[in-house]
């Protein structure tokens, strides 16, 4: 679209705040972070260059490795489960049921609460002496052992449960919006063809909701990378280091441990990983968009 002087100037001017934020805050912070990660800064930044020693130390750090592994396991399961559950809920809510509004709100409300707020309730529910386990004992199931929250090999799944509870409603909302946008004639066509509803959903509807799935996946992925509150509020990384995550590693080293050299090295590593994944996707999307614009 053309722009002659007046409007082009206005459009360019309108972008100044965003440009300023992007260049000064985002890029500036990133450059600073990368630089500090190559110094031996501790509590306060200094400029003593130490090359890649912070990175050596980072990748020799068991907690960092565990954090990254946790994030990978958590991230994959979290995205798959929220997408599946969110889609399933959306399909069921879309079956012309009673109380749809009410159910939708019930599924969506957890998203409005932060883990700073709900972490306590979850920790309590999963507490081996107070929570669900105790209730089971009280009603006579003495053999029930539910101690996943305090088991190193299971704690990550308790976080998963809380996280799925938190985000599935949002996925459901996105999927529901997608379902409502599907051409009703598709349903007529599949009924005439005698295709059972479940097959229609899997082989016809799911491919049609590609956009909704992509959106939900991106949103879930951003929340995975940023995962911090949940770990702090539910387990504080424990037991041991079993539920540590990278963002918490960064945060702890940044402030509590006064080791910002290491913290920025960790942040830079995360950033590079993200860019390595996001950049090609953006490029592809851009190219597709350019092609569509022709």
């Amino acid at each position: 679209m053309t722009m002659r002087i007046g409007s082009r100037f206005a459009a360019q001017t309108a972008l100044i705040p965003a440009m300023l934020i992007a260049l000064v805050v985002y890029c500036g912070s990133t450059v600073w972070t990368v630089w500090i990660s190559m110094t031996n800064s501790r509590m306060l930044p200094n400029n003593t260059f130490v090359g890649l020693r912070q990175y050596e130390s980072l990748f020799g750090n068991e907690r960092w490795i565990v954090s990254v592994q946790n994030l990978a396991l958590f991230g994959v399961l979290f995205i798959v489960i929220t997408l599946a559950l969110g889609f399933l809920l959306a399909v069921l809510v879309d079956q012309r049921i009673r109380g749809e509004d009410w159910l939708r709100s019930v599924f969506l409300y957890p998203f409005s609460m932060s883990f700073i707020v709900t972490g306590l309730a979850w920790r309590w529910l999963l507490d081996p002496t107070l929570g669900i386990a105790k209730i089971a004992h009280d009603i006579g199931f003495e053999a029930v052992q539910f101690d996943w929250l305090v088991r190193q090999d299971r704690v990550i799944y308790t976080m998963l449960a809380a996280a799925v509870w938190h985000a599935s409603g949002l996925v459901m909302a996105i999927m529901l919006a997608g379902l409502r946008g599907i051409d009703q004639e598709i349903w007529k066509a599949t009924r005439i063809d005698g295709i059972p509803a479940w097959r229609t959903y899997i082989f016809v509807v799911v491919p049609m909701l590609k956009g909704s799935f992509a959106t939900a996946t991106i949103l879930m992925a951003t929340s995975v990378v940023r995962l911090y509150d949940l770990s702090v509020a539910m387990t504080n990384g424990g037991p041991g280091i079993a539920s540590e995550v990278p963002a918490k590693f960064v945060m702890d080293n940044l402030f509590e441990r006064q080791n910002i050299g290491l913290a920025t090295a960790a942040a830079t590593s995360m950033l590079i990983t993200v860019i390595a994944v996001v950049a090609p996707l953006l490029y592809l999307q851009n190219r597709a968009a350019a092609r569509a614009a022709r």
Partner: protein
Amino acid sequence: MSGVTVSAIAKAYGSLKVLQDIDLEVQPGEFTVLLGPSGCGKSTLLSAIAGLDEIDSGTVTIAGEDVTDREPSQRGIAMVFQSYALYPTMTVRGNLSFGLKVKRLPKAEIERRVGKTADMLQLTPLLDRKPGQLSGGQRQRVAIGRALVQDAKLFLFDEPLSNLDAKLRTEMRVEIKKLHKDLGMTIVYVTHDQIEAMTLATRIAVMKGGQIEQYAAPDELYERPATLFVAGFVGAPAMNFFPGTVHGGHVVIDGLSLPLDPLPLAGAVADGTKVILGVRPEHVGLADDGAQGTIVDASTDFLEPMGADTLGWFLLGRHRISCRLAPQRARSVSGLVRLALDLRHASLFDANSERRL
């Protein structure tokens, strides 16, 4: 009120040339239609005139003023879009008056103009409705109204009827034609529908591949198409084409030899020239019914009733030829027939340059 002159406009997206050195002159009061298949550059040319698309080179002059570097709103134009592009959150009144408000016209003047336009287009009862509450035809009228209130020097229409059903389209066509006649404004109108073009235009510019093939009045365009493309694009049912070679004052088509004498040729054609002969279906008749022209033998292939006419398809050697027949007569046509080709109205094109000879 005034005309438009477009000279040497060019535009390219990368290596794709969308407009190639276009020259076009629209006289004041003229109704010019830009006609062509999709992708021919007609909408881009319209956008260039409107100032909505940047051009690489060339100039646009409206009413004698060079407007090449002006904002669309400063060119004295009004425009009607294919999707109508009505502002969905505004009422009909809001849509009509928005441009006038932007131009800071006095309130009374705005009301006067909106009222007048609404009356003219029978929009008065709809003034307080939003576009979502209107039918397709009503929206179309609002879109035209929005252009009319502007008192513009030049009206641009970008396929304004293509979203309407067939009946409405015919009605609106008549209405637009009437508006042009009554108001006498200058119009540049884009369409891919040749019937629309033929019925509305005072002059048609047929475009292909970013170039204007021919710019002429509808009759001339129909009767003396300048290129093979124009000949094929204009006219329904389409013109019959036969490739052949010129030999001794005849054009030889697969052993069939037709004389060149009756053809309205611009000059002599050298022997051996590869040519394409074009004959419109209405210039083919049944010799047995007394049709005049060059007689050839053919066999009946099939018949295609079209209401007012029936289109008869015959095999002429390896070629198929169509012929406009009266429906009653067509019912008894079968087997071998003798066709009369009225070559006085035929066109001859150079097979290489595809230009009229």
